[in-house]
């Protein structure tokens, strides 16, 4: 149990307190901290963990009292590991607790089995998938034998299939070991069924504490308006979802497809090992929005990199009726833009303003000012792009490639790890380009986006394109979806249910 009494926290160098006289009791069971980014939930979690005020240097008043020991699981599994192999990583936790070395092997084996990783101790961590890594991180935390488990967006960096597995595992372990859990999560459908108490944080203060069923659906509209994460279905299922704001959000009008002119054509395009791309063949038109799907390692990034001429390749690649390699690099990249997954690697200049000036040299200074306003970056235009929040960086990095009438835009998972609001704005930016005739090729995991915006879908498996067609054709092919670890989007399932329900009525 944790008791927080009149806690206020302020980061050095900032005027405003991040947490303002917060009082709270964490009891048995699972508590969810909910709020917008900047509402103070991460700081509160850190305070509950005892990381403030020393490990994380802050000014703190008020008290936090704990009975029991705490373990923390952070977002990014990569940034929690010190060692190379899975056995050694768990051993690290045991060493920290001064467990005698004779006992270590047996404990490590038990922990690995507990999280579903019954692999040899010498397995390199680098060979694990994102979900498996997070499970290993969980094992390393459980090695400390905590009675209270704190989780900071544990599924943020994991693909959808891994998310469900991880959550199920966490709550199974909770039951088996009677742990108290405090959790920050944005994927609410995955965790709300297990949550006992939701604590709503706004601007550093707790505004509401309730059981999820008492909060949703009645606060749904209010929370959504404030930009706070809301569940897509909870507390309903696809079948039982009544008409209302939640259902409205699941309705997706199909994208409008207008005919375009041929833009590029590839035939038998392949790359050398270790990059997996084998004999890709397809053609793209102007204004087409293509989304590339597939499990991690299936070749999505490789395909994009190949289209972007970033990898040595064999086969034919015709861009606007000329072989792509005949274009000088400069001419090619005037027409082809590339947006990498990490926005902070894509900035060149020391201020946001300079960044826009560089990429939009042909625009007038009024146009550039208008662009900064549209991106909501005017207030930070003198700051370094690296000092911006993730959402702001995302908007800026995409903006540097837009508005230049490029023929082709290649995007590598631009919405990964982003909340709903940032994703929406990003899509708006991209839609404007697409409507002007730019072809978009986008690798993604987000099936909802596919249903709403994709004109065409390419599915990759082990370097080969195993599907090339329209989204609704893909969603009908259950076998393929399962094989490639893809889920059907909720809005599609919703339409199906609706369709079936409507079909039943005349029969009755």
């Amino acid at each position, binding site marked *: 149990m944790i008791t927080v009494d009149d806690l206020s926290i302020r980061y050095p160098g900032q005027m405003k307190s991040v947490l303002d006289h917060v009082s709270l009791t964490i009891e048995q069971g699972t508590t969810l901290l909910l709020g917008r980014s900047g509402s103070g939930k991460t700081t509160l979690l850190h305070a509950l*963990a005892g*990381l403030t005020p020393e*490990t*994380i240097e802050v000014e703190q008043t008020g008290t936090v009292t704990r009975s029991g020991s705490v*373990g*923390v699981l*952070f977002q*990014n599994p*990569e*940034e*929690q*590991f*010190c*060692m*190379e192999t899975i056995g*050694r990583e768990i*051993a*690290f*936790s*045991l*060493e*920290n*607790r*001064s*467990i*005698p*070395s004779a006992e*270590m092997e047996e404990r490590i084996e038990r922990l690995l089995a507990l999280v579903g990783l019954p692999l040899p101790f010498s397995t390199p961590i*680098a060979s694990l998938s994102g979900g498996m890594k997070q499970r290993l991180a969980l094992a*390393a*935390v459980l090695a*400390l034998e905590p009675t209270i488990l704190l989780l900071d967006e544990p599924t943020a960096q994991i693909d959808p299939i891994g998310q469900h597995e991880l959550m199920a595992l966490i709550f199974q372990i909770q039951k088996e070991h009677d742990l108290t859990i405090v959790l920050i999560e944005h994927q609410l459908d995955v965790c709300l069924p297990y949550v006992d108490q939701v604590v709503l944080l706004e601007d550093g203060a707790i505004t509401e504490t309730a059981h999820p069923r008492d909060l949703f659906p009645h606060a749904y509209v209010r929370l959504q308006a404030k930009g706070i994460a809301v569940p897509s279905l909870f507390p309903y299922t696809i079948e039982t979802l009544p008409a209302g704001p939640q259902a409205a959000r699941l309705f997706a009008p199909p994208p409008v497809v207008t005919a375009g002119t041929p833009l590029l054509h590839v035939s038998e395009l392949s790359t050398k090992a270790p990059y997996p791309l084998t004999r890709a063949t397809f053609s793209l038109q102007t204004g087409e929005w293509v989304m590339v799907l597939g499990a991690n390692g299936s070749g999505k990034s490789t395909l994009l990199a190949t289209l*972007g001429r*970033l990898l040595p390749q064999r086969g034919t690649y015709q861009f606007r009726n000329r072989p792509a390699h005949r274009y000088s*690099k*400069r001419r090619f*990249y005037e027409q082809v*833009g*590339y947006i*990498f997954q*990490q926005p*902070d*690697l*894509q*900035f*060149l200049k020391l201020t946001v303003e300079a960044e826009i000036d*560089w*990429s939009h040299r042909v625009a007038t200074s009024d146009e550039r000012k208008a662009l900064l306003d549209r991106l909501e970056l005017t207030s930070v235009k003198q700051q370094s792009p*690296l000092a911006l929040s993730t959402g702001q960086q995302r908007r800026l990095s995409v903006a*540097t490639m837009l508005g230049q009438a490029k023929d082709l835009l290649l995007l590598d998972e631009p919405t990964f790890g982003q909340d709903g609001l940032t994703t929406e704005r990003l899509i708006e930016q991209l839609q404007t380009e697409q409507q002007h005739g730019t072809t978009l090729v986008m690798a993604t995991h987000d099936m909802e986006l596919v249903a709403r915006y994709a004109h065409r879908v390419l599915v990759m498996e082990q370097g080969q394109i195993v599907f090339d067609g329209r989204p609704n054709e893909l969603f009908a092919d259950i076998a393929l979806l399962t094989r490639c670890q893809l889920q059907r989007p909720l809005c599609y399932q919703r339409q199906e249910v609706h369709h079936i329900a409507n079909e039943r009525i005349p029969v009755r």
Partner: protein
Amino acid sequence: MQTNASLFAKLNPVIKGSGLFLIMFALIATTDWVKTLVFLGLAIGLLLLSGWGPIDFLKRLAPYSLLFVLTFWMMAAFGKGTDTIWSFGWFHVTTESTMHGWLLALRMATFVCLSLAFVTTTDATQFVMSLIHQTKLSPRFAYGFLAGIRFLPQLIEEVRVLRQVRMIRNVRSRFPGDAFLSIGLPLFTRSIQRAERMAIAMEARHFSAERTYYEIPEVSRRDIMYLLAIVSFICLIFLL
């Protein structure tokens, strides 16, 4: 850096490294290229003990033959000397400079063989553990180092992406060091943020110098014998 199943791999890493450094110091103190050649023989012997077959050895070291020639040439053509063999423009080859050329090239070749013997028979984690227990390196620094080394592949990838971005956005270097600043800023910013998060994660896992250890490398009789053998060999060479 990886380890294998050879004899050399069974030695305690710090002792092994110390022995090799002793040989290197002896080499640095040698001004006679004949003695250097003998040390090269020793180094090759150690390589054979490291599980290297003669064919692998030649294949792996073939690229270094160019460097060997260059090292020889650098000294032979630019070294001082009075007994001129051949002269042209900047180049000035003398008997003295040729001798020195051999000395340095052979020394370099020996250094390469010694390094090779070390990096192919030593596990990184074992090496750092050995530093903690044999040289009393603080565990906070040692594990911090291991955590940093973990990110090598990621850093290499990030540098690759940073260079690609520069190519795509048509950026040229305006002065030496421009590329370093341009790539360094995002690279180092990320590294600092990452370092802070790692430090928090490690402290959240109750990391401190008070701890037990999963494995403790020990110094065995074999290690002492190895050191004695090397010291004897060096003394022998110098006395002859």
